[in-house]
């Protein structure tokens, strides 16, 4: 490790009323790592991701991606630069079928910015379809290709959303509790899939409560409490850390 930083969050402050959700937070995500962010409820984990994808603009501080400042950019601009996010509640196109759900992000790669090229007939988009099919097969969803996405189980919806993000081949993938609310079997399957992606060298940030997931996937772990990073290190170091135990067992809770 010690290679170049993909994401650099510098002195970010974000307040909601009087509450400091992010309190001068600094975070560096290095290229090719799987970086887990853990912390008690209300520590600011989701706020951090929202700031990274442009859903929220920080009050002060900056977010740099790939060496360029992305603070204050529109969500679609940030996405086009290569950040994808899997949400805590799956954000998919419920009315469309699975193939369409994955084809749309694949199309974004071609014409996310509006062009009249976009009026082209779908039948000529063989390459888009091929890319979509490849990911759908990886996610074991190929047998339900033309099912309405909204009718699927929660676990499948999550996998579909993951497929939608992966088909874009992002430089940085943000995962917000990818296994929350999943049955044990589904969780294991998701871990397997995430391990497979890890092999491709894609940089990932995972927010997770399930320590099994964290310790089986992450290269580095940051602990977030009351809007700041209170500890950072390898999974083994974090497991032994006194500060972390305190943050989880009491005292630092908001």
């Amino acid at each position, binding site marked *: 490790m010690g290679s170049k930083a993909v994401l650099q969050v510098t002195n970010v402050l974000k307040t909601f009323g009087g509450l400091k959700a992010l309190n001068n937070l600094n975070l560096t995500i290095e290229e090719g790592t799987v970086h887990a962010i853990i912390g008690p409820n209300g520590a600011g984990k989701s706020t951090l991701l929202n700031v990274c*994808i442009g*859903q929220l603009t920080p009050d002060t501080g900056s977010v740099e991606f790939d060496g360029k400042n992305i603070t204050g950019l*529109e*969500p*679609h601009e940030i*996405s*086009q630069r290569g950040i*994808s*996010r899997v949400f805590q509640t799956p*954000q*998919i*196109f*419920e*009315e*469309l079928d699975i193939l*369409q759900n994955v*084809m*749309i*992000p694949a*199309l*974004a*790669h071609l014409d*996310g*910015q*509006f062009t009249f090229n*976009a*009026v*082209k*007939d*779908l*039948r000529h*988009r063989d390459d*888009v379809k091929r890319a979509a099919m490849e990911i759908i097969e990886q996610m074991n969803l190929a047998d339900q290709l033309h099912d309405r996405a909204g009718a699927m189980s929660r676990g499948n919806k999550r996998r579909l959303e993951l497929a*939608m993000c992966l088909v*874009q081949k992002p430089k940085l993938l943000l995962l917000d509790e990818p296994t929350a609310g999943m049955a044990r079997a589904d969780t294991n399957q998701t871990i397997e899939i995430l391990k497979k992606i890890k092999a491709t060298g894609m940089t990932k940030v995972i927010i997770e409560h399930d320590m099994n997931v964290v310790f089986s996937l992450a290269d580095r772990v940051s602990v977030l409490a009351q809007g700041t990073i209170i500890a950072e290190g390898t999974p083994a170091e974090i497991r032994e850390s006194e500060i972390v135990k305190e943050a989880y067992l009491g005292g630092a809770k908001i």
Partner: protein
Amino acid sequence: MAIFSVVVLTMPLWMQPFGAAYPDILQKFVIFGVFAIGYNILFGLTGYLSFGHAAFLGVGSYTAVWSFKLLTMNIVPAIILSVVMSGIFAVAMGYVALRRSGIYFSILTLAFAQMCYNLAYSVLTPITNGETGLQLAKSDPRIIDRLFSEAGEGLPSTTLFGIETSGYSGFYISAVIMIIVFYISLKIFNSSFGLKLKAIKANQNRMRYLGFNTKPYLLSAFVISGMYAGLAGGLLAATDPLAGAERMQWTASGEVILMTILGGVGTLFGPLLGVIIIKYFENIFSAVNQLDLHSLYAIFPAWLENSLVAISSLFVGEGWHMTLGLLFMFVVAFLPGGVLEGLQLIYKKIKTRLIKNNKSTGTDTDTKQETGANHGE
């Protein structure tokens, strides 16, 4: 597509049994068909409910009549100009209204259309001729026509290179245009553009986080549907060269929403079915009077006849709105997919029954359309 064209062009034949085979109402079927097809591109695909599309219909009509007055009685420049003009209006209105979504978008479009309507009655009277409506006059310049011939006696009529565009020829010209624009909307529905619009309807935030700038997509859908409305307005003027401000009132926008929902939002044929049903009610049902009812129930004894007439007269003639309202309530409550969904259910039931009887099935859009008109009775 071929079947669809045949069905549309033979409307004068198969509309006969329903008493709707005269050019005036047939023209309305296809012209409002254009309007509804266009409206469906916005409402059906993106889910944005516009209350302002009547403004484009009005703009299209005024533009066409002005083209008849100033340029030529030929409908080609009139129609092209009305599409362009309504497109320009749609860009302006869409640019402002699309800053919001949901109910706020609807209210902004409503405000814009009502503004157009009121301006047409007041400040813009020199252009719109206020309450009287914009009409042709003998003294109109008609520059292009004058190059070729002297002004004749009386008012000239609208033509398509010499073919008069009223009556049946007006219907056929409008029908051909409707078939063309239907084909275009079919292409839009099946293109990746159409897919993205559907995705915006399903989850606009997701689209943003996938890297789509959704504004231009919405604006182009809005402008396309505005141009469809302008085309319909131009055609209305082409078949009857008169433009009044009442065409721009919000009730006209409401009517196209009713048509689209009644027929089936987001389906290809649904809006057309809705148009036929509503225009049929408006023109045929409203014309039924007490005498017609008496002759209809003549076979019953007098006391029964009279009470039947008393009950049914609530629903026909002046009361056609009530029948339509009840039908609309029924459709929204039980068939959210519109009349088209109902027809598909019936079609499926018939099909499964036929398969049970080991018979081959041979249903096409023709029978679908016919049953659609039956529904309207």
